[in-house]
């Protein structure tokens, strides 16, 4: 499955159907089980007759977006963030509304009306979507309250092939990596949970973990890169330096044995990797940690995370695949927790 296809699929938290169908269509045929649980998580397993340790890969299907929350008399949609989208990145962007994907535009007052005071970021109260409806009734029937809105961002690769821009690398990059790992035959039980509702509180993973009860958990994620011109040097995770391994974030402390094995796998695979710099944020490794599982995260560095357009290094993605593959090949050598 192409990363492009995964990124262009649309699904906010709790509206992952389209992404789930796409992932399902890309699953290999040699799986032991494919189920969708009551939350909407897609749970797959292979190699269940092998001895442990059993490994669960977590990758979330949902993306950040917006929700229709009301209509103005002149047919515009009122909106709120669906997941963590700051209002500062929303004005002037192209969007797709509802499951049908009606084209919409997020307006902005002409700059002539606020010269010199245009720097204050708008609040969601000041942001509207125009879908071409002339009145509230038309707008309501085309885009009822509660409809999802996603960013209309094409997938582009830079001319040198090194980087890509699109929406939803968080976490379709992780979904892509998990699908890649499912293509191989492994000599241990491998589970993958393509989860729902990560962006609204690591919710799908909690349920998936209770069903799978694995020995080891790896969250496959996208993490914020801060290697841009105004960033203080050395503070940020960098794109191009390989996948980022988490030591500590707001949700968890990575398991030491897993961390060490992941770093060793990076060295053995001969690919660049880096420690994730910064201790903010959180991911599904944290949900696992809170349930007492040994967990760690492998993240693809991503600039402009949670914005209508993000940027990743395709070399980082390839390096993450190599690192993961090497890690799983040697998973029996992961040191215990003693």
């Amino acid at each position, binding site marked *: 499955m192409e990363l492009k296809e995964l990124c262009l699929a649309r699904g906010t938290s709790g509206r992952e159907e389209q992404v789930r169908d796409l992932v399902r269509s890309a699953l290999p045929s040699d799986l032991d089980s494919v189920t969708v649980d009551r939350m909407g998580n897609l749970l797959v397993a292979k190699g269940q007759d092998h001895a442990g340790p059993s490994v669960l890969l977590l990758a979330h299907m949902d993306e950040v977006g917006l929700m229709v929350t009301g209509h103005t008399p002149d047919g515009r949609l009122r909106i709120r963030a669906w997941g963590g989208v700051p209002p500062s990145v929303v*004005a002037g962007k192209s969007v797709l509304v509802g499951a049908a994907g009606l084209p919409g*535009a997020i307006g902005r007052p*002409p700059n002539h009306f606020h010269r010199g005071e245009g720097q204050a970021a708008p609040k969601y109260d000041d942001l*509207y979507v125009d879908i071409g409806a002339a009145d509230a009734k038309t707008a309501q029937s085309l885009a009822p309250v509660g409809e999802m809105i996603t960013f*209309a961002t094409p997938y582009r690769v830079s001319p040198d092939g090194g980087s890509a821009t699109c929406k939803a690398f968080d976490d379709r990059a992780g979904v892509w990596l998990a699908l890649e790992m499912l293509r191989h035959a492994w000599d241990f039980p491998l589970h993958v949970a393509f989860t729902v509702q990560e962006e609204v509180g690591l919710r799908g993973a909690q349920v998936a973990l209770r069903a799978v009860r694995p020995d080891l958990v790896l969250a496959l994620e996208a993490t914020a890169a801060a290697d841009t*011109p105004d960033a203080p040097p050395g503070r940020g995770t960098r794109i191009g330096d390989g996948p980022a391994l988490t030591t500590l974030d707001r949700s968890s402390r990575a398991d030491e044995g897993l961390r060490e094995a992941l770093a060793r796998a990076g060295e053995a695979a001969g690919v660049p990797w880096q420690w994730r710099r910064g201790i903010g944020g959180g991911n599904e490794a944290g949900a696992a940690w809170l349930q007492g599982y040994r967990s760690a995260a492998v993240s693809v560095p991503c600039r402009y995370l949670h914005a209508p357009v993000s940027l990743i290094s395709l070399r980082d993605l390839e390096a993450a695949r190599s690192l993961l593959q090497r890690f799983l090949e040697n998973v029996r050598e992961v040191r215990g927790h003693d």
Partner: protein
Amino acid sequence: MTAVEWLERLTSLRAASGHEEVVFAELRRLLAPSYDRSETDAAGNLLLWRDGPPGAPRLLFTAHADQVALWLREHLPGGFARFAAPAIDPVCLPALEVEAKGRHGVVGMLPPHLRERGVEVKEGEKDLYIDFGTESALDLPAIGEPLYFATPPRQLGDDRFCAAGLDDRASVAAIALALEELRGEDLPVTVLAAFTVQEETGRGGAAFLCRGMQPDAAVVLDVTFGRQPEVAEPDLPLLGEGAAVGIGPNVPPGLHRWLESTAAAEGIPCQREPLPGDSGTDGWRLQVAGLGVPTALLSIPLTSMHSPQEVVSIRDVASCGRLLAALARSPWSSNRAGEGGAAWS
């Protein structure tokens, strides 16, 4: 071509001030059967002539061909660049895709966790940069080159069209529609369609329009602020109710009456736009150019001007084109074109 086809075609072109040739080439090509001769004047404006009978009065339709842009100011290591965006609201820019000559970039800024809490774009474009996602600065746009919003032109609902650069390509489309409609007809006037340069950087091109040819009347087309919920101005013209006829010192009363009565006679919707001072269009300069030009203003309502998401009504563009064609056909009485155009007042 239909109004939507013209809008799609014209907004897929990128033409910052001083870079209008790409629009002119397309107009010369697509309108070839609909004009008698073309010329490019000293300022670089494109003039398309529809010749009337010898000695016929000259009616000028004009719209500017350029659009707002970001300008590359400085390359930074790592495939980044600083830019200037003089006519653009910086609030639209974070996480926006821009393009130049087929290269795409993202407008980036410091991630939220490294910014001062609550502060967004503090110093305008100084806090922002373009990220070309490359390790090499080779092949990047050069200093001084324009960068454009990468918004895909698209239709919204039944009647709205959204794109970057509809200011003023929507007006260019209306003039193109009028020329197509008038193709092959005998007209009582000579119609001159002028597409001007560098409006967005100071209304440069239009001032040259009457050098060497004194029009007897001019209709200046531009876009105007349409009503939108983001703007607390209740009297702005609404999208979908027709082009707005300007009323004020920029327009002799006889001229705006001519536009309104012609529209009424043809059943073409239009609305009024009160303009008590500078109209902010090419018309303000044109009116006092040379020996003076009787100037009318016809504006297409547009929301989110100068943003990446400009929106117009497709019906408005089409009806504006029909109104221009009707003006060109309407009988031209001698008193209307009287001494120096004084009859218009």
